[in-house]
């Protein structure tokens, strides 16, 4: 009887834990990233491992339509200009469902990246699995990853800076500071920072 009760309790705990893990919010600082393959706006597939020369990446979950993402677009372009040559290029990923948000369709992504002359890949996360795995919930959200051997490790999660309206007025440039710290071998002083943004347009299930 006691054993049966114990087994029940264990099963219940296991079920509770596994149910919880389904809604776990993705990667935390220090986690190793599972590499992905996503289609770029030039129809080619890109993975983190594709380029062996980088020290890491500035991964930005963004989109065409969100006003906050638009406000940060030039800052993302500038981050790539600043850090690609130093080993931390930008990879932008759009996970919005193109049917719910036609302005974020693959064709619209191609146009946007051409119009704004993106110097970095703009990948479509059609199944939304990459956004789910990372725990991205809104645009724009940055994950800075650092190459460690054959792995990529999460070093920063969150906002680009602390002034959405005017980057010049931002007193905390979270992503820039994090990458600079990684480049000089220091720990990232502010490894997470939250900001408001547009909820990712999840497919209806």
């Amino acid at each position, binding site marked *: 009887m006691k054993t049966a009760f114990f087994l029940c309790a264990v099963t219940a705990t296991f079920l509770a834990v596994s149910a919880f893990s389904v809604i776990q*919010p993705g990667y935390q600082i220090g986690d190793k990233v599972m590499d992905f393959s996503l289609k770029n706006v030039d129809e080619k597939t890109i993975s983190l491992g594709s380029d062996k020369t980088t020290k890491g990446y500035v991964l930005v979950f963004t989109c065409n339509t969100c*006003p*906050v993402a638009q406000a940060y677009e030039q800052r993302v372009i500038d981050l790539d200009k600043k850090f690609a040559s130093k080993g931390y290029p930008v990879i932008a990923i759009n996970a919005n469902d193109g049917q719910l948000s036609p302005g974020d369709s693959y064709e619209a992504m191609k146009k946007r990246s051409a119009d704004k002359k993106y110097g970095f890949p703009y990948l479509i996360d059609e199944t939304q699995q990459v956004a789910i795995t990372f725990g991205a*919930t*809104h645009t724009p*959200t940055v994950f800075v990853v650092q190459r460690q051997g054959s792995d990529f490790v999460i070093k920063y999660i*969150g*906002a680009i800076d*602390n*002034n*959405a*309206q005017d980057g010049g007025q931002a*007193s*905390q440039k979270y992503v820039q500071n994090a990458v600079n710290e990684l480049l000089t071998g220091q720990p990232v002083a502010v490894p997470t*920072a*939250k*900001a*408001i*943004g*547009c*909820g*990712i347009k999840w497919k209806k299930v």
Partner: protein
Amino acid sequence: MVSHHRWLFTLLLILIGESSYGQPIRIIKYPDLQQILESPNDSILIVNFWATWCAPCVAEIPHFEKISTQYAASKVKVILVSLDAASLLEKKVEPFIARKRIKSAQVVLLDETDYNTWIDKVSSDWSGALPFTLIINKKTKLMKGFERPFTEAELAAELKPFIQ
């Protein structure tokens, strides 16, 4: 005499507000929000964080107004916290609220743009995605956060456990 004038002025404001301009919207700071969230009383509070630039937020705003009217007798109070730029209060937020005829739900504009300093204090469950809604039973301290948009039926269903 002064208080008499003030009373008349208030009445005038209410009348103007009701007829053409919609409700006056107060610009608040984080301590004011904290006061709203934490002050003890016996209401059930629905706090919705939104912005005029957020399409799913705009789509669900009428549901909050409806719920606010329908459940007023159950001591349900709805507060819509706009995260629009304070500079857009008169140009964007007030006209939107007037157009949508938001009268029962109270609207405030939270002028705190250094988000990382307060988002976690509102709820550690909130990543920053909009819309975000908190339902709080002030008496029992039961609280739940929802980082997703609602249909009217979904909102009513989530509210139910908070009403005894």
